[in-house]
C-alpha cells in the first residue's frame, strides 16, 4: 500500500508566504512554486509509506498549506505519475521529508491531456466527485449536458440547442444540450456532472464511434455528433436502464461520467458486464443480452441479466449501479407513494 500526498488548499490567507515557504523547502524557484500551487489540489508526492506521507502533511501544514494523504495505487493508469517520481520518493531520507528535493517537474496530477489533440482540460476531485475544467480557445465552443455547468469565465456565452432530436426526450435526459462558446477571448468552463463518481475522456478520431449509456454524457466538442439509438425491444427492455443508447461519432473530445468508480477494460474475445454497470463501449463490439446462469439464478442471485460483449474494443464499467443505490435507499424513503 502506497500513499500520495496532495496539497489541497491554503491554510492561511497569505498565499504568497505559503508559496515562498514551499519553494524554499522543495528547493524550487518561487515562480515555480506559485505555478504549482495555483490549481489545487495538487499531488506532490507519490509512492510514500504511511509515516512519510504523514510527515509530509505536517511539514506542509507548517508552511501554511492544507495537505492530505490518501491511498494510491501506483500502477493506476489514470493517475500516471512518472516512474521517476516514485523512485525519487523511495529514496527520500525519512527523517527530513520537507527538505527532500521534489521531482524536477511534479506530474500534473489531475489528469491532463496536453499531448492529445483537442481542448486542454483537467479533471479534479477524481474519482469520488470528478470535476472537469476545459480551456476554450477563442472562437471555440463546447457542448455540455444541460444544468452541468458549475463555473465559467464571464467571457463565455451560453446557447441552448435542441440536440439529438426527440430521441433524447425519451432517454429521460433533458433534451437540451447547452453550447458554451468563447466568442472573442479564451476562457475556462468548469463542469460538474450530477452523479457522484468519476469522469472519462476519449478523443474520437474521425470515424470512431462510441456508445454511451443513457445519462452518461457530460460534454463534447461541437464536431461530435450525438444521436440516440434504439436498442431494440429485447436489448432495451432487459438492460434496465433504457431502450436507448447515445451514439457519439465525429471528431473531437468526448467526456462521460459514471456513478461510482470507473474501470476501463480492453476486450478481445468475450466479456460479460452486468447491464447496470455498463457506461460506454466502442462500436467494434457486438453486444447481446443474456440471462445469467438460468432462471434459478435470475430470481435468487440478484444478477439477472448481463450483457455479453463480443469482438475487439473497449468497455467502460462503473463500480456502482444506480439501481442498487435506489434499492438500498428505498427502504428509508418516507414519501407518500399514493400520490
Amino acid at each position, binding site marked *: 500500500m502506497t500513499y500520495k500526498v496532495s496539497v489541497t488548499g491554503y491554510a*492561511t490567507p497569505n*498565499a504568497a508566504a505559503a508559496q515562498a515557504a514551499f519553494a524554499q523547502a522543495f528547493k524550487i524557484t518561487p515562480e515555480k512554486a506559485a505555478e504549482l500551487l495555483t490549481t489545487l489540489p495538487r499531488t506532490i508526492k507519490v509512492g510514500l509509506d504511511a509515516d512519510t506521507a504523514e510527515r509530509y502533511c505536517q511539514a506542509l501544514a507548517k508552511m501554511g498549506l492544507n495537505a492530505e494523504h490518501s491511498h494510491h495505487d501506483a500502477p493506476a493508469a489514470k493517475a500516471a505519475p512518472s516512474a521517476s517520481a516514485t523512485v525519487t520518493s523511495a529514496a527520500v531520507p525519512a527523517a527530513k521529508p520537507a527538505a527532500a528535493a521534489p521531482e524536477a517537474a511534479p506530474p500534473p496530477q489531475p489528469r491532463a491531456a496536453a499531448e492529445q489533440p483537442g481542448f486542454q482540460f483537467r479533471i479534479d476531485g477524481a474519482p469520488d*466527485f470528478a470535476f472537469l475544467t476545459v480551456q476554450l480557445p477563442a472562437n471555440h465552443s463546447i457542448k455540455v449536458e*444541460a444544468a452541468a455547468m458549475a463555473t465559467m469565465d464571464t467571457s463565455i456565452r451560453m446557447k441552448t440547442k435542441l440536440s439529438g432530436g426527440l430521441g433524447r426526450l425519451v432517454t429521460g435526459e433533458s433534451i437540451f444540450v*447547452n453550447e458554451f462558446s468563447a466568442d472573442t477571448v479564451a476562457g475556462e468552463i468548469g463542469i460538474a456532472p450530477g*452523479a*457522484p463518481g468519476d469522469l472519462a475522456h476519449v478523443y474520437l478520431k474521425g470515424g470512431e464511434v462510441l456508445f454511451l449509456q443513457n445519462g452518461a454524457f457530460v460534454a463534447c466538442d461541437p464536431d461530435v455528433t450525438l444521436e440516440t439509438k434504439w436498442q431494440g425491444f429485447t436489448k432495451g427492455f432487459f438492460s434496465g436502464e433504457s431502450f436507448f443508447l447515445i451514439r457519439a461519432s465525429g471528431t473531437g473530445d468526448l467526456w462521460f461520467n459514471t456513478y461510482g468508480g470507473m474501470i476501463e477494460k480492453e476486450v478481445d474475445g468475450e466479456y460479460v458486464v452486468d447491464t447496470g454497470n455498463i457506461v460506454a463501449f466502442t462500436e467494434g463490439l457486438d453486444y447481446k443480452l443474456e440471462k445469467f446462469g438460468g432462471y434459478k439464478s435470475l430470481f435468487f442471485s440478484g444478477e439477472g441479466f448481463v450483457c455479453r460483449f463480443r469482438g475487439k474494443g473497449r468497455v467502460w464499467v462503473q463500480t456502482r449501479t444506480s439501481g442498487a443505490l*435506489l434499492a438500498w435507499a428505498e427502504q428509508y424513503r418516507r414519501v407518500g407513494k399514493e400520490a
Partner: protein
Amino acid sequence: MQAQIRGSDAFSYLAVTLEPGESVIAESDAMSSMAADLDLQARMNGGLIAGLLRKYLAGESLFVSVFKNNTPAARSMTLVQPTPGGIRALDLHNDTFYLQPGAYLASTEGIKLGLGFAGFVSWIAGEGLFRTVVSGSGTVWYGAYGALLDKQVDGEYIVDSSHLVAYEPGIKLKLQLAGGLFSSFFGGEGLVTRVTGRGRIVVQTRSLTGLTGWINPKLR
C-alpha cells in the same frame, strides 16, 4: 492541538488530538468518536438570539459542542460532517472568511462565529440569505458536498448557484442569467452567481440539485 483531515474526498473526516487543557469547538452532532474521558459541554452558539438566528437562517445548530481535554495526557477524537464530501482547514490571523450555510464543521478557541447578511442576491441565487462569518485567530474546518476546489478570482468569474462554499470578504456576489432568456430557463442553468472582486473562492464539485436531478427521474 493536532488536527488532520483524513479519508478521501467522498467521506472526509477530521482527526483531532487535544493536548492537556486544550479544547475544540464543533458543530453539534459532528463528533463521531472520542476518548471516553474528554469533557463535552454544549454551549449556546453565541447567545440565544444569535444562536437561534444561526439555526434558522444559516443552517447551523443552536448549540455547539465544546470538547475539552481535562486529563493529563493527549486525547484523540474524530469529527464528521453530515454530507458526503471534502473537508478543508483554514487558518485565520485576525481576518474574516465567509462560509455558506451549513459548511461550518469545527474551530479552535479564538475563532468567532457570526451571522452575516449575505444579501438578497445570495438568497435568490440559492446560496442563502445569510452566511456564516468566521473571524479571529485560529483554525476553522468546513466542508461541503463534493470535492472542494480553490479558485483565485481577480476580476469576475461565474459560479453556478449552489456550488459556492466559501469566499473571502473581498468578493462580492451578483446575480445574472446563465445565458439568454430562453437558454437560461430551458437549458437548466437558470440563474448563476457572478462573483466579482479579488480574493479566493472555494467551489464544491457537486451540488445537491445535480444529485436530485440525476436521481429523481429514476425514482418511482
